[in-house]
C-alpha cells in the first residue's frame, strides 16, 4: 500500500518529495527473498513449555502410569502442579485450537477499527495544505491507532 501511494504521488507530483528514491528502496526490499522460517514467537514459547514440562516430569519421585488404560486424573494433577509452579493459569486453555494459532497463515482476529476523532484529525493536518501531505498524515495517524 505504501509503495502504491508513493508511486501514485510520484506520478502526479514528480520531484515534490523524494518519492523516487523511496520507491526504489521499497521495490528493492520487496524483491528480497523471504528469510528461512525460524522458530520464534508463540511456537518457540510452546516448544519451550513442552520441554520444561517433560523435565518437570522427570523430577517426580513417584512413577505415574500414562496410557489409554490408565486414569487420566494423575496427569491432570501433574499439569496443575507444574502450572502452579510456573505461575501459569490453565483457565480457558486452548486445548483444541492452539494448533491453528501456530500455523504460518494464521490471522489473529482483527481489533475493532478505531477512527480519528475531530481533535486527532485537526492535529494530523495542522499546518498542511497539500492534498498528498494531508493524505499521508491522516494515513499515518490511522495506522498509529490501528497498528
Amino acid at each position, binding site marked *: 500500500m505504501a509503495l502504491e501511494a508513493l508511486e501514485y504521488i510520484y506520478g502526479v507530483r514528480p520531484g515534490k518529495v523524494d518519492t523516487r528514491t523511496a520507491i526504489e528502496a521499497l*521495490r528493492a526490499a520487496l524483491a528480497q527473498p523471504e528469510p528461512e522460517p525460524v522458530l520464534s514467537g508463540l511456537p518457540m514459547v510452546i516448544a519451550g513449555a513442552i520441554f520444561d514440562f517433560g523435565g518437570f516430569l522427570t523430577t517426580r519421585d513417584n512413577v505415574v502410569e500414562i496410557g489409554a488404560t490408565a486414569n487420566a486424573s494423575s496427569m491432570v494433577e501433574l499439569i496443575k502442579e507444574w502450572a502452579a509452579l510456573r505461575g501459569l493459569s490453565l483457565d480457558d486453555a486452548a486445548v483444541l485450537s492452539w494448533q491453528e494459532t501456530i500455523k504460518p497463515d494464521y490471522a489473529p482476529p482483527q481489533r475493532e477499527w478505531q477512527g480519528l476523532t475531530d481533535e486527532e484529525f485537526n492535529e494530523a493536518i495542522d499546518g498542511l495544505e497539500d*492534498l498528498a501531505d494531508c493524505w499521508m498524515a491522516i494515513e499515518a495517524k*490511522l*495506522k498509529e491507532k490501528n497498528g
Partner: protein
Amino acid sequence: MTNDDKLLLECYSKLKLLFNPDVPLMKDLRQRLEKPSLWRKRNDKRREEIPVKSS
C-alpha cells in the same frame, strides 16, 4: 472489509472535508474505493511507466 479498505475509506472521507472531490487525486481515491480492480489495472500500468534509475 479489511483494515486496508477501512483505512482508505476513512482517508477519503476525511480528505473530502478539505479538498474538492473533482481533483485528480481525489477521483483516483474514489475509483480505488468503488472499482478496485479497474484502479489496480490502471495503477499497474502507471507503475510500469515510472522510470527505474540505472545503476
